[in-house]
């Protein structure tokens, strides 16, 4: 058994004993009842299970939970799909997913949402030129599987959020 203390969506979960081989996915879904994070393959191939890990230096990244032990998240701060909306207000990316009809069955949505959000935050820290933006989005989302949509509208939604706030996410190029 190993001690797991973790902060999820801003809420501190007091240290608790968990099995060494308990997956983070099962910790979220079975122990905490947080089933917004999905189980898809158990092999880190579909990425429907990813959560956002916030590092102390302010950076963030996604992490699959189906093949990662819960214990390995000890001391970490993470965000899940349940934590994106604040005070009843959906995040810009959540709104864009709805506006663009980005998903159909919606089972992969949490994974895409987390990955897209990480990309937005990375771009906010390190804006990129407009040229090549689509490739950057494609690169970011490419590991995620979706069987209903063909990915098109997920990409469009992320692009829309970035272009709607271009000053934040893109390097402002001098006018010629």
């Amino acid at each position, binding site marked *: 058994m190993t001690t797991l203390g973790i902060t999820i969506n801003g809420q501190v979960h007091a240290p608790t004993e968990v099995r060494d081989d308990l997956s983070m996915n*099962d910790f979220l879904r*079975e122990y905490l009842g947080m*089933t917004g994070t999905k189980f898809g393959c158990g092999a880190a191939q579909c990425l429907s299970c990813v959560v956002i890990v916030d590092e102390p230096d302010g950076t963030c990244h996604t992490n699959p939970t189906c093949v990662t032990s819960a214990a390995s998240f000890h001391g970490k701060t993470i965000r899940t799909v349940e934590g994106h909306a604040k005070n009843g207000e*959906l995040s810009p990316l959540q709104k864009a997913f*709805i*506006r663009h009809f980005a998903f159909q069955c919606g089972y992969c949505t949490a994974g895409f949402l987390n990955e897209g959000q990480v990309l937005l935050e990375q771009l906010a820290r390190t804006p990129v030129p407009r040229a090549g933006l689509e490739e950057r989005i494609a690169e970011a*989302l*490419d590991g995620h599987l979706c069987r209903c949509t*063909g*990915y098109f509208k997920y990409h469009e939604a992320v692009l829309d959020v970035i272009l709607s706030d271009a000053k934040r996410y893109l390097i402002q190029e001098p006018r010629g």
Partner: protein
Amino acid sequence: MRTSRREFMKWVSAGGISLSLSHLAAAEPVAFPARETLPGRGKLNPAIGGAGRVDGVAKVTGSKLYASDFRANDLPGWPEKTSHAILVRAPDATHVYLGMDLARLSGALKPTVIVTAADLARINVRVPAYYEGDLFCPVGKTPLYMGQPVALLIFEQFDTYDRARIALRDGTFVQFGEETGPIVMPNYAAYRFTRVAGATPDAPDVYSPVLAGWVTPGRTQASALPVWSSTAHKNEAGYEKAAVYGDQIRAEIAASESSALVLDRTFDTQSVDPMFMEPECGLGWYSAKDKALELVLGVQSPYEAAESIAFLLGETKAPFKPSAINAQFAYVGGGFGGRDHTPFIFYVTLAAIFFPDRPVRLAHDRYQQFQAGIKRHAIKMRSRMSVDRASGKITAFAADHVLDGGGLANFSANVATCAATAAIGIYDVPKVDVTTVAEHTRGVTAGSMRGYGSLQTMTALEVLIDEAALALKLDPIDFRRRNALKQDGRTMTGNPYIVSVRSLEVLDKLEQHPIWQQRAAEKVRAASGILVGTGVACVTKDYGTGGDSSNGRVELSPDGRIAIFCDHVEMGNGIGTALANRVALHLGSIADEVAVSQVGVFDAMELVTSGDCYTMDQKTQDKAEKDPRWVPSISSATSASIGAHVGTHAAAEAARVIFRFGLWPAALALWNIGPRDPRARDFAKAQWKDGQLTMAGLPSLPLDKLAAAAHARNLVTGAVAHGFSRWSWARARFPINGEQYRAEIDGLALRRGAGKFTRINRASVLFPPTDNNRMGTAYTAACGATVRVEIEKATGMLRIAKAYTAFECGQALVPEVVIGQAQGGFAMGVGYALLETLPPFEGGPGNGQWNLGQYLVARGSDLSLRDVEIELMPPLTPDELPKGMAEVVMIPIVPALLNAIHDAIGHRFAALPVTQAMLKGALA
């Protein structure tokens, strides 16, 4: 989002068990008001203005929606704790099953309950006929198929279950003895479809399935592969005539080789997995004290699932026989046919029954989903085609199909007939002869996966058509156009389509597209080391099953709030949104509440049914329909392709009745128009604009005012309707307010004011004739694709440089959802053509060792997302009814890719998928 546990319909099943069903949505208290909007009228209602789906907020906030999301403590009235079950499956089907060695589950890991075939026999579990075959392989028998269950292991605690699951992962504890070889079983279905057209297009057919019925060489033939000869012994009645014509067609094709182009080709397609994202899952709780079984399931066919479970337990011994079953159906995380008539539900049920008073959860992991989930049929095809060289017209076509149905029958017969009747695609061929057989094998069960049958046979056909065009030195699109079936032409079963036929328009669009126009120039411009090719294909796909039912209920409150209830399932296809939009056409506003997967709320119609709507004869139907409550089928399974056409039909008709006998008379009253005023009959001229009912020269009336007036005057404020389609909708007359109201429904109940729903007995009914069952299909939607590929000579790596798909679906209820489905279909088609494959038998998924990683699904980078153009063609007329389209969109890209590959490298592949390794091999 609010809980949708509603009043349940109760009825008594054949086994004497009371059943109730409902749709299950989030059961937990919600965190913020936005979640309560499903779809609601709040400011966050994403359906208003068509911006977003009605379930959008729930899906982006991680609400509990899917069966896999629910545990016992999420469900009101259930015990707190959830136990967990492992379904053990046999990874072998050629040796005798000896039992399980569970030594590795010693001590704390020991399961609390073990359920085997012997236990099922002990309590007298019955297997519904559709699922014929042992639910568990008994010790001492060879499994019927790879992945056949052998036992359920139930664990009280999650941790025990989880550790056991890990310990058992390699599957070697399931033990086998003597080698027997696979179990040999009769084939699931064998049919021959033969048509000989008359001398001219207008002349009646000489012979066709519609004229003569569907024929089979003999269910009495004992061999796995039928003997197709017209002179074979034990042929069934009527077969010989078809076989004589068929053999003649084949002889003519062979004899025409000197004067005509004759192609004789084989084509093999592979088994694939629907790979819906949510593995199958369910939750059950059997209260022994109350004899009540509660279930949470996620399937495409809720009604069938509940009935089958009731049959399963109908004669079980006490204390295992429930007196009541309450099944709740959750959203599904993808379906694609893989959750239609899935046997998984039985194992959830058995887990609950054998561990009474403890809620038990059964969930596939992905390995198990690959091992046992319903697959697409692999089909081996041989096709022969004769084309007149002078006219470029196809004169005859013959084919033989052999389908691998896997271990259980499931929908193999339907897939086989669908594949056969789709074998001539968009073309008008005067002489056709197609044989088809679906075999039992030891592979994983195959079923009705998206585009079933047609995908396989139309791919083979469109590759053959391409080859013929090139051999005749004809432009591939021109060749297709010369042979395309026109609006009034007959399909290969001998009937015309009853909906628009738009293949020619699709071909025109493909021809005009820059991808096609620039194909020669792009070939020349290819970079060094890259081969460029362009391909095209055009298909048409049936939708509906020839026995589709639709239940809808619409309620209007005094303040104008609209609630819609529908029996079809939300699979991601946006049926909830489509319902809201279709009802809004009649009631002027988007609904405040949409509930899908409903059955219990339609009981006011008090419908009854009998017989099998697919096989009954006219006399039986004529007799049965005298009962005004009788319908050929009460509820049918959901597939994405019938969501718009069937799923929304009854609700739309219910809304139409409310308008006609509720809102319209209310408007007349508010306008002070008396019943004798000629304007009183002008309801068809009224229009909704911005939530107001408008009529020229009269003040506009808002919905809430009309609704209040309708309630105050005790007019119709709610309607429950049922529709049945056998390639056309049943029509009936209902006496309402002294009028004979005619509509495409066969069951109706009305609510006046705030009263109760009351059944309206139909005065007369016209059900589609039972002979319509002889049609292959009468509903069709066309779709075409052209694609340019770039293939790296050195590596065989293929890149889709540009792709274009054009399709039609009548009136698109939610265009964004329709386009989304088309995009998803394109992706699934690319995966099918280039990536996805499951080997049969021992090396295949039945061994329990398959997962993503080995099984490749198209990712965004496989699709060239920014270079794919998908065009939704407008409806022929603004009021053209919605057509099914979710299936057709995945088909043409598959042969188009193969034709593009041939154009690029000069090699024509005759099997799927065409992988990079195969391309590299062909280029070597």
